[in-house]
């Protein structure tokens, strides 16, 4: 009996979906737009955090050691900095490497290279490059470095400068901008998704409103709530599935076009490649959202007409 009823509900849903084509079509159009908004919001937040990460990765602080600092002191400092919970990575650049880098940077600058030769020897000290897990943590790291500026073995200074002090204002501001824009983006996405959900629900409600007479007749014939409501929920789910497929198809040229125009804006992030690489997951999100929105909207919309 249970299976017979379910089979009949599903069949009635399929038949209703085709025969009520025009109404189904309008639901599909609106739902496709909603799904596009949801996925666009998702892609936007992914691009956004990828870009923020890129920016964050370009923020670092560098410790310039004095030329007289001993290698063991410098490596000991690197080790202790590495152990800090705020630190993501550290890179030690020896004096020789720093010189090589400098020469490479100025390979076309004959004058500077000549001047370097005149000095006879390496004027550069070693460097320690530090990346924090979050830009807001550079202040703590800088404070720690301040306390470690003297060699523990012979009491002589080992740190020449820490460039955080020069970059402090910029880093603080960037941190504030990143936090603020992330919050703003989340609120904006929330509002957009909420609005499109409400519009979808209303469209489905209107479609079902047109069927209120039928629902009343079905009740008077003695059909149970489940038997009346089931086919509408099935139609909602089918609209969701078709909308998900449509949205996935539309996203292909849309992301292709966007990729052309945004790669320079969003540093090194290609949205089209991202879409292709993560197609499975994105389609799953589309499908699940479509099915859930369709089913719940229909379920709720039928409720008020079932009271007969």
């Amino acid at each position: 009996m249970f299976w017979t009823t379910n089979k009949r509900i599903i069949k009635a849903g399929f038949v209703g979906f085709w025969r009520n084509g025009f109404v189904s079509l309008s639901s599909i159009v609106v739902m496709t737009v909603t799904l596009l908004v949801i996925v666009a919001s998702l892609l936007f937040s992914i691009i956004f955090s990828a870009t923020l990460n890129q920016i964050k990765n370009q923020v670092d602080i560098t410790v310039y050691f004095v030329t007289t600092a001993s290698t063991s002191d410098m490596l000991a400092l690197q080790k202790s900095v590495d152990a800090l919970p705020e630190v993501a990575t550290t890179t030690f650049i020896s004096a020789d490497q720093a010189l090589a880098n400098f020469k490479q940077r100025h390979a076309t600058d004959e004058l500077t290279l000549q001047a370097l030769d005149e000095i006879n020897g390496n004027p550069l000290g070693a460097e320690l490059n530090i990346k924090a897990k979050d830009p807001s943590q550079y202040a703590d790291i800088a404070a720690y470095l301040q306390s470690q500026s003297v060699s523990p073995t012979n009491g002589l200074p080992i740190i020449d400068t820490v460039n955080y002090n020069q970059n402090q204002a910029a880093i603080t501001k960037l941190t504030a901008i990143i936090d603020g824009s992330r919050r703003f983006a989340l609120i904006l996405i929330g509002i957009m998704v909420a609005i499109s959900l409400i519009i979808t629900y209303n469209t489905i409600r209107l479609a079902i409103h047109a069927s209120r007479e039928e629902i009343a007749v079905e009740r008077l014939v003695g059909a149970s709530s489940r038997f009346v409501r089931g086919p509408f929920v099935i139609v909602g789910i089918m609209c969701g599935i078709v909308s998900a497929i449509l949205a996935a198809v539309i996203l292909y040229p849309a992301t292709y076009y966007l990729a052309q125009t945004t790669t320079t804006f969003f540093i090194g992030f290609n949205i089209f490649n991202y879409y292709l690489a993560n197609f499975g997951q994105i389609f799953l999100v589309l499908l699940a959202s479509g099915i859930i929105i369709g089913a719940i909207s229909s379920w709720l919309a039928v409720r008020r007409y079932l009271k007969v």
Partner: protein
Amino acid sequence: MIYFDNVSKQYADNSIALDSITLAVDPQEFVSIVGHSGAGKTTLIKMLLAEERPTDGRVYFQSVDIHDLRRNEMNLYRRKIGVVFQDFRLLPYKTAFENISFAMEAAGRSDAEIKSDVPHVLDLVDLGEKMWNFPHQLSGGEKQRVAIARAIVNQPDVLIADEPTGNLDPVNTYDIVQILKKINDLGTTVLLTTHNRGVIDSIGGRVISMEAGRIIRDDRNGRYVF
């Protein structure tokens, strides 16, 4: 079998649709309810279908107060009652066959029963060859015959026909009345509302006359008196 016990209905705008109606209907009776528009005939039917609740009084079906029924008991009760409306109220996106099979599916009948009963009942109302037509492909009389077929397919105890001939021409009206009589002869109680004199006079059973929400006459072998 059906008993209205002092039933009154007052709408929100204070208009009185039914005023202290007391009425008993026996099994296998053919009862015609007549009266002008607004006399309370349709409200009386709605009380019996539990489409609306009385403001006062009780409605019993086989000694059970139908307005006390729970949801699933209500579904079972409604399957014992077949209804035919003036405006047919067929499901527009279902064929004649599907309109009838819907009532059977809702009642939980098996696929085999549906396959054998639906064509049978369509033959009974003489619509066998239009089984796969949609309502918009049928004439008024044909739609009403589909509605009757749907109402009787679950072999209800009572058939309620609310102005079934109101939208039909005399020939179709005659056909519908003959079908209702046949159904009554087969043992189903029939409750018919109408304001068509010809219909009443050709049936000649019990006639209840209503005016302004009250029963003004109840004749065992009545005629149309307005």
